[in-house]
């Protein structure tokens, strides 16, 4: 009786472990590839708002972008701080700007915001993944007010800035705005003190937000 118990439990464990290992093998490569592709797309979409698709070129690390307006560009991405800040480079290795990521955890899901800055520290583009909790429709119009703003403008209207409060977001807008402003200030400081060049890795504290 005891032997039968142990035997059947072992068999059940082994069968399930092997089937899971199989499933993991099959799906994992696709999951990893999708994840990498999604991140690249988010970064490029923040920098070049009209991006429709991107394809890797022969040159490693470089992508050909095609925009909805028909223009194509060749750019490359390099992480400056792992998982937080990326530099975007044009074909001649000239830096076009940086993109940083802000994550906020709200109501059981993570909202990621990607903000693109030009070398003049003005916001070039902004995109959110998961939506702001208002659905994707109203997002774009609300986000568009960030574009071409300097860090001094990135404050809520009632705090003396130019940003309208989102009508009905599920996230804390002030936290998001504060992180964006702090990131821009850090980037500006690094540019002024020449701590950031085309290849150098900048050291900033990561923006932890809840």
């Amino acid at each position: 009786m005891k032997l039968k118990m142990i035997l059947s439990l072992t068999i059940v464990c082994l069968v399930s472990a092997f089937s899971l290992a199989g499933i993991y093998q099959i799906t994992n490569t696709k999951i990893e590839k999708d994840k990498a592709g999604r991140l690249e797309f988010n970064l490029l979409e923040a920098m070049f708002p009209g991006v429709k698709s991107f394809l890797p070129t022969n040159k490693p690390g470089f992508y050909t972008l095609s925009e909805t307006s028909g223009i194509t560009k060749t750019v490359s991405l390099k992480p400056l701080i792992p998982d937080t800040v990326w530099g975007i480079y044009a074909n001649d290795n000239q830096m076009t700007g940086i993109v940083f990521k802000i994550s906020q955890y709200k109501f059981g899901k993570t909202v990621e915001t990607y903000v693109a800055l030009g070398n003049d520290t003005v916001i070039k583009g902004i995109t959110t993944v998961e939506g702001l909790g208002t659905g994707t429709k109203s997002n774009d119009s609300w986000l568009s007010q960030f574009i071409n703003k300097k860090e001094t403008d990135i404050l809520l209207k009632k705090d003396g800035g130019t940003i309208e409060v989102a009508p009905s977001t599920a996230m804390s807008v002030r936290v998001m705005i504060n992180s964006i402003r702090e990131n821009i200030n850090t980037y500006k400081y690094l540019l002024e003190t020449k701590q950031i060049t085309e290849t150098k890795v900048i050291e900033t504290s990561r923006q932890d937000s809840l």
Partner: protein
Amino acid sequence: MQSLFLIFISAFLVNNIVLMRFLGLCPWLGTSNSLGSAIGMSVAVIFVMLLSSSVTWIIYNFLLLPMGLVYLRTMVFVLVIGALVQFIDLFLKKNRPALYKSLGIYIPLMATNCIILGAAFLIIDYNYNFIQSIVFTLGVSLGFMLAMIMLSSVRERIDTADIPPSLRGAPIAFITASLMSLAFLGFSGLFGL
């Protein structure tokens, strides 16, 4: 230190496990009939959760991750928590009969309590280290206790109120929950979090 405090407040109030994340609704509704059982249940949750989070954290970081067995996570966690609950039950019965008398009926319910497993998954998702995960667990379980005590105090009054027959029982409890959760939304601006 500051980040530990933020983790605690976030788990305790801002992302309250019951009212904001909807975990553990079954025990929340099931055992909030009286203040006594509410407190008993929450103390049992705090106790079991501190143990289970530490054990699952150790197993995940020292066993599953190095051996590349991440895909066994769900199964291992459920089994480990089930076994742990069984063990605590037996241990209390034998060695601490007084404690067992007051908490005994709640301990077996822990095995299917989604707060315990949910917190274990969240700790992995957030990449917390051991200290952070203990603080997080404490915040989550005290948050559960807060929600539990609040609901049970309100419910003792609701029982005597005149409510449309269709809404008696669970529906009115959910409407109460909705109002509490609305109040908790206000915490999302706390400390500029």
